[in-house]
């Protein structure tokens, strides 16, 4: 099996066929849309944050196996995290996908995504849900400041 097949084996086996938290949240406290203009893929991220803790997170959209698996893994990883932890995780994942190094403490299961860095054209697919999540979080931060 080649590297690409291996990556897909590890990542997709579960998450593409059986994505976690693949639904809409009716009244999310935070949400954002992501779009990859290159391939036309679209994603929606929904979060419920209570007292600074992410209690609910989900996604919807159409995307390739890598973006779908990345979204699914992300939703699993975020539940129970504080906003600051989520932002830190964004940085760890971003570093991992661009460098291939999965050595950050908070990476855990997300390490399967490290193989994406070998396929530069796909880095955007893997990172899109994370950018969208970050946008969702930051919008709230801004409103929180003006309140």
């Amino acid at each position, binding site marked *: 099996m*080649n590297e*690409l*097949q291996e990556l*897909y*084996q590890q990542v*997709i*086996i579960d998450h*593409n*066929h059986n994505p976690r938290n693949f639904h809409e949240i009716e009244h999310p406290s935070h949400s954002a849309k992501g779009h990859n203009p*290159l*391939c*036309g*893929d*679209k994603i929606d991220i929904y979060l419920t944050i209570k007292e600074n803790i992410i209690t609910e997170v989900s996604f919807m959209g*159409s*995307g*390739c*196996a*890598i973006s779908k698996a990345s979204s699914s893994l992300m939703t699993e990883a975020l539940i129970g995290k504080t906003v600051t932890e989520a932002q830190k995780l964004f940085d760890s994942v971003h570093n991992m996908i661009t460098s291939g190094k999965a050595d950050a403490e908070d990476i855990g299961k997300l390490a399967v995504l490290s193989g994406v860095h070998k*396929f530069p*054209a*796909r880095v955007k*697919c893997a990172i899109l849900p994370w950018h969208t999540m970050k946008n969702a979080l930051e919008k709230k931060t801004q409103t929180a400041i003006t309140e």
Partner: protein
Amino acid sequence: MSKFDVNKIRSDFPVFTDKSLVYLDSAATTQKPKQVIDAVSDFYSNYYANVHRGIYELSMKATEAYHSARQKVANFINSSDWRSIVFTGGTTESINLVAYSWARKNLKTGDEILITEMEHHSNIVPWQLVAKETGVILKYIPINTNGTLDLSNIDELLTNKTKLVSVIHQSNVFGTINPIKKIITHAKRVNALTFIDAAQSITHSQVDVQDLDCDFLAFSGHKMLGPTGIGVLYGKPELLDSMTPFMGGGDMINSVTMTKSTWNDIPYKFEAGTPNIAQAIGLGAAIDYINEIGISNIHKYIQHLLNIALEKLRAIDKLTIYGHQVGESSSVISFNLEGVHPHDLAQFLDQDGIAVRAGHHCAQPIMDKLGVSSTIRASFYLYNTEKEIDKLCANLIKTAKFFKGL
């Protein structure tokens, strides 16, 4: 296919010395034969100078070569007047030139521009910008989901307010060849001007501006074996003459004083600044190359490849081809394989050296119509082989199987 020797053609393209490359993205841009590369390199190495400026030998030689490229383009599309050929950066710039120098100057609120839902973004967005600034109404000839234009209501879409009809000759998504002659005839009934986007069709069909009797026509050098950075706007000379310049600068003026300038003659009026000389010369060499083989031979050969590819792709389980059902079409095939996202599929094909396109192909309105976010597109040109089609199909089957087993 006896006269057409694809192996000999392939040997003209340095990129194919890499035997593992299966290049199926010519609708995006074509590879270059050494004849084109050499022509550009010869110019830079042996007679490089600016054009229209020097009275020294070198500059005259460069000017001659630049002019000769223009004459080649005129002959290639059967224009009897070289002044009808404006060199631009590409199809996109050609369309924008007309949007700025003609549409913005001549159209007013309530006038209409008619395009189609099949257009490349470059034949949509410039008109949307015109519409936004001037109050012109942009209308669309609809497409059928089988990849053809729905012309049933064309006489209602064309009104005495229609001032311009701009249509893609060959779809870069479906490969469909549109009945542009018929559309031009309809447009003339309401005295609308006509613009043909020939970016795809120019590569293999006899585009004849006298026979079509269109007012404008555009194409890009890089899609027809030529360099990037060079394109063509054909315009009827009297029309070009009546238009104001697109950009101001050197080369496009007759005289400049502190208060006013007068414009140079066409086509120079539209070519401000030092032009893309090397690229124009390269385009001339590409036209020579195509003429040497014969455009009708190229057409026949890629039509042959298309038929084989369609037959073999149709035999693949769970593969949907968009278009190629009725009417004329060329060797651009968009498809999807159930259960494998186009992006994933293209990545797997790339592992085996097969270059196809995955995406919306700069035609999002078509994707909306088909109800998909993207497709795979394989496009074939004169250097592709039947063997490559077999390799593509074998890989599609292999990939489908891999994904099914996950």
